[in-house]
């Protein structure tokens, strides 16, 4: 099966380059505005990083940090308000209709909720046929491709699933179908948006293992979006920590897990629950309060919860600075 042949791995080559990307959108109606609430949410606010070929990058953060928006930008499901994203040298906002079709075969998305991600009226065969049709694959070849894709995601005896409807599958099986759909056109780049958060714990590991396997076998470039550092650590060699639309810290996952630098990352790492009763817990190095994406503080967006904040943090937006293997956006460094 030609699908199994991984693309040439050129680890040093940059596949995607994001420069000062911003995604702002208007929210709330007239009444929110009347009460002086900001009507612009800065979902992504000046984000810069590169993704190399065959690299797995974890986008880590809490709800509202912009990680999902970032994923949507990378797939051109949303256009940047400002800044640029180059995919294999091509600027995404300038991509033409015809080339967009090609881009859609190269970049794919794995969804969070498998029950929402497939049309309940479609059989598994119909669901998996759609990308093949769009790519102009001959009808006679489709079935074989579908079976191959289902085998790739280790769905046992795939043929029996073809004419079933989504509600006849378990969450774990359906998530594999969703992965198969993303992989069926042999993309180079995959964004996985919390692919196991809706699944039960006992089946999560299965989906994660398939993801890791397939990625390695096909040499995929992958973005793994999650709020769970333990999961990101399981899948990604590199982690980008986001908070309120900005990047706080970016570096090798193991370094971040064992020695977080940014005060926010420190809090995040300390807060991750551990399934081990013998683990001792330090108090959280963070103040109370919650991020409000509509009214972020001036300067460093984390400063109102940061135990180490000082005057400069209010005055000046910290720029990412290289610290060892990492880059950290904090005035302490």
């Amino acid at each position: 099966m030609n699908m199994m042949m991984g693309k040439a791995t050129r680890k040093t080559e940059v596949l995607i380059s994001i420069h000062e990307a911003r995604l702002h959108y208007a929210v709330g109606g007239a009444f929110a505005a009347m009460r002086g609430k900001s009507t612009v949410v800065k979902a992504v606010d000046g984000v810069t990083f590169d993704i190399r070929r065959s690299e797995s990058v974890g986008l880590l953060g809490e709800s509202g940090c912009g990680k999902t928006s970032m994923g949507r930008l990378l797939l051109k499901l949303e256009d940047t308000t400002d800044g640029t994203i180059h995919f294999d040298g091509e600027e995404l906002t300038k991509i033409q209709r015809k080339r967009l079709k090609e881009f859609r075969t190269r970049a794919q998305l794995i969804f969070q909720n498998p029950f929402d991600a497939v049309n309940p009226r479609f059989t598994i065969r119909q669901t998996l046929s759609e990308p093949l049709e769009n790519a102009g694959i001959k009808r006679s070849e489709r079935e074989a491709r579908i079976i191959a894709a289902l085998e790739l995601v280790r769905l046992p005896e795939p043929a029996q699933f073809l004419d079933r409807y989504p509600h006849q599958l378990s969450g774990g099986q359906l998530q594999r179908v969703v992965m198969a759909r993303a992989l069926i056109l042999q993309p180079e780049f995959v964004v996985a948006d919390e692919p196991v958060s809706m699944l039960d714990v006992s089946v999560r590991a299965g989906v994660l293992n398939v993801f890791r396997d397939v990625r390695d076998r096909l040499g995929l470039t992958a973005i793994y979006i999650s709020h769970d550092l333990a999961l990101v650590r399981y899948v990604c060699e590199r982690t980008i920590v986001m908070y309120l639309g900005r990047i706080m810290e970016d570096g090798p996952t193991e370094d971040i897990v064992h020695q977080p630098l940014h005060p926010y990352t420190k809090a995040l790492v300390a807060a991750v629950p551990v399934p081990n009763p013998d683990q001792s817990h330090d108090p959280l190095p963070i103040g109370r309060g919650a991020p409000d994406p509509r009214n972020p503080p001036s300067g460093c967006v984390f400063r109102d919860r940061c135990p180490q904040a000082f005057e400069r943090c209010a005055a000046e937006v910290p720029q990412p600075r290289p610290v060892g293997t990492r880059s950290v956006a904090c005035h302490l460094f």
Partner: protein
Amino acid sequence: MSNFKAVGSRLLQLALVLWAVVTILFLMFRLMPGNPMAAYIDPTFTVEQQQQLMAQFGLDKPLWQQYLIYLGNLLQGELGQSFRYREPVGDRIWLLLPNTLILTFSSLIVAYVFGILAGAYLAWRRGSWVEQTAIPLVLTTRAMPEFWLGMVLLAIFSFSLGWFPAGGTRNPGAEYSGFLDLYTSRDFLAHLALPAATLAIYSQGLPLLLMRSNMLDVMKEDFVTMARIKGLSNWTVVVRHAARNALLPVMTSFAIAVGYQLQGNVVVESVFSWPGLGRELVNAVASSDYPLAQGAFLMIALVVIFMNLLADMLYAFLDPRISHA
């Protein structure tokens, strides 16, 4: 700054709708078959009157200039002369508007009080035989032509039983010293009863069905379940939590219902010879009194548009999720 913009944009929207309706009205009346001047000038007017109106409405000018003059006149509240009454259209409309509003509001208030209570009750008694019979019945009242219902009520309660007068707002020969005197008199209320009942019977279905389905929705909400877990009494759960929440959209629908009712009034006023805007509109159109027809239409449209706006604002005001955003 942004506050100003938001309110401004809502008002702009209102202005756009107003302008569009006014323009549609202009086009409708100018594009009708026959002499374009017929819209404002009756051949039986005196030559002086005709010339005065020609000048006032610029009827000898090209269409686009007429349009500008028309807009200018509207802004000054100038609607022309009624052919039949030989008096300014505006005066005639101000005379009739109270009758229409009294009929509309009296019937709607009755309909809403009944509809809300009955709707809440039916939601509570969901699945019972009462509910099983009531729902199709309510649907049937929504399927009745209002004027036909009026005819049946007239035939029974006026012509057959003689309990209520057959039409108008007062007995022939009755004189009243003023507004309040007339509208609170027994005579007037007797005349009001049948048309108001007709409209109320027709209108109660909307609040009833809306209240019922909202209640059924709200009863499934977590906070209602929580209220039960708190051990609150059934009454507290159903009335203070379920009904209170279900009421919000029903209250909003009142404003919209006023607009709809005003349109329905057209036929019912005709059945009961009720001297309101709707009947006047029908008569004016039938007797080619175009200025009056246009004025009456415009007035009804104004109320409809204003009520649509009010519905929006009412919701924002009543729902703390919006008013305390």
